[in-house]
């Protein structure tokens, strides 16, 4: 019947993952975004090894090196590529350490929110009826408030701290995920393969986790990348407003805020460079997310 089919697993390029990879690499901007993002992540993870100095170890700072413009040479002969702040802190090193905090906070809150949103959204879609109505009204209530307002209120109530910022970001973002996955799950739930799982007598738990969730995940990957970007931006905003992370864990937003006061004095590098780093991170994430959305959407997917 099919003797000419080789007795092997299908080649990687024919698996859903393989098709995704080949579609993704077809767009140069997406690849650019991907490598940009990769660079940012590597910088963040290996900051202590890449950074010329530890900006938060006061022993390594020298007041004599303060307020140097980019490219200056310090008292010890070291070059400050992006200049220093008033305490002689290397801006490049600060950015690397700041990226670390920003990415960690952004990713942690996006993933926790993703988890909560998935559970809530799947329950709403699968259970339907009153459960669905109650959950979705709550989601709409949440979404009707501006994100920044909710985050500010929560931080004001909970106080400062990395965990509290993450909590505030999760509180702001879970509703997006819940609404999105509910919509996806409602569509999938009506498909015949879910009916087939009922005929096979599977438990609700199995149907939702093994069949419904995997089929809702691909479009959600997009939302996750976008939401990581928006979590980072929101955290930067909160830090800029002075209600973000504690001073001991300065993020990019805080550095921008700190440098802001010196803009008029001509020390542009204190704000601009952390700002560029933030921009680069968010644009990379969005490029990757945008293109993922295009290739995961069957309507815009090239064949």
């Amino acid at each position, binding site marked *: 019947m099919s003797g000419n089919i080789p007795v092997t697993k299908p080649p990687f390029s024919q698996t*859903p993952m393989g098709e995704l990879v080949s579609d993704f690499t077809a767009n140069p901007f997406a690849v650019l975004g991907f490598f940009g993002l990769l660079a940012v992540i590597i910088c963040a993870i290996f900051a202590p090894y890449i950074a010329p100095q530890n900006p938060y170890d006061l022993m390594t700072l020298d007041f004599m090196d303060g307020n140097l413009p980019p490219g200056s040479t310090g008292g010890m002969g070291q070059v400050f590529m992006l200049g220093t702040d008033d305490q002689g802190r290397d801006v490049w090193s600060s950015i690397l350490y700041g990226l670390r905090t920003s990415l960690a906070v952004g990713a942690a809150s996006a993933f926790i929110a993703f988890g909560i949103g998935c559970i809530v959204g799947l329950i709403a879609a699968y259970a339907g009826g009153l459960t669905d109505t109650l959950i979705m009204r709550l989601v709409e209530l949440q979404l009707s408030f501006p994100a920044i307002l909710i985050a500010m209120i929560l931080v004001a109530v909970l106080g400062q701290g990395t965990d509290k910022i993450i909590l505030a970001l999760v509180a702001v973002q879970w509703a997006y995920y819940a609404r999105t996955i509910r919509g996806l799950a409602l569509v999938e739930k009506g498909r*015949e393969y879910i009916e087939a799982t009922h*005929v096979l*007598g599977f438990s609700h738990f199995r149907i939702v986790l093994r069949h419904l969730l995997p089929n809702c995940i691909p479009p959600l990957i997009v939302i996750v990348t976008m939401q990581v970007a928006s979590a980072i931006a929101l955290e930067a905003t909160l830090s800029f407003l002075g209600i973000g992370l504690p001073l001991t864990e300065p993020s990019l937003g805080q550095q921008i805020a700190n440098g802001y006061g010196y803009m008029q004095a001509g020390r542009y590098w204190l704000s601009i460079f952390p700002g560029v780093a933030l921009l680069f991170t968010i644009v990379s994430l969005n490029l990757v997310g945008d293109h993922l959305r295009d290739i995961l959407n069957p309507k815009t997917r090239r064949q």
Partner: protein
Amino acid sequence: MTAPLLSVRNLGRKFVQKPSAVAVAASLLTTGKRPVQKAVRAVNDISFDLGPGEALGLVGESGCGKSTVARLITGLITPDQGAITYKGETLAAMARKDRLKIQMVFQDPLGSLDPRMRLGDQIAEGVRVHNIVPAAELKDYLAGIFADCGIDPVLAQRYPHQVSGGQRQRFGIARALAMKPDLVICDEPVAALDVSIQAQVINLLARLRRERGLSYIFISHDLNVVRHLCDRVAVMYLGKLIEIGDAAEVLSDPRHPYTSALGDAAPRVTLDAQEFRAIKGEIPSPLNPPKGCFFNPRCSLATDLCRSEAPELRDLGARKVACHTPL
């Protein structure tokens, strides 16, 4: 007949179109009354028995409620009237484990297989979850199922979109078969396939039935397929059963005008040029079925009685027909 495997009594199911909150508000404001709820009687007072090892064909036009009957029997939806008993037990009261003996093959194999799970895993999942065979024998058991269904085991590693339509439907059949069913509901299992593949799948279904003593409820609008595969045939029109009896007898010598019209509309291979006789008129809206016999607006034999009173299903020789003026 021996004790029936499946017995359907006065089965009915209606679907209510709930008006939206806005429509209710608008109606309350303008007329002061709640809007009339529109209901479709998708299945209306249907009764039949199915013996062990028997194949019953269920035929009728699109929208006549065939698939709803299938979904009622598999428990995907619940009836609001009548009852289904399986081996003497009411289906609604049965444990899930016993319901597994009723399996289903769906019309669209691409839509009914999980797109993100390897085909082999999908066949194995049900067997594993319900311990159909001991875990140690699972591999051999599946190999046997694949061989029976004419599936190349290599394809088990693939995803549904990577195999051909015919192969996909073989997996759909294998999934049902792996649960060791007594009764398989086939909901137009070949309608989505190429004609050349249809014959293969139908022969496969016929062979499996022979070898395993399966009972089938075979839903189709292809009368030739039903004649080939089924012992008995039930004809549905607008949610009602209008004729039921021996397949060859009913299809070659129909007594209900609708069955006759269906037979005339089915294409046949002859050497002569033939005129295609379509059933005149459209199928009436199930939201607003005609008075009397539902078929009367399209029936050439309709009398005043047909227009005022709905005929009951009556014995007519070895079969049952719901018609005031049987042919």
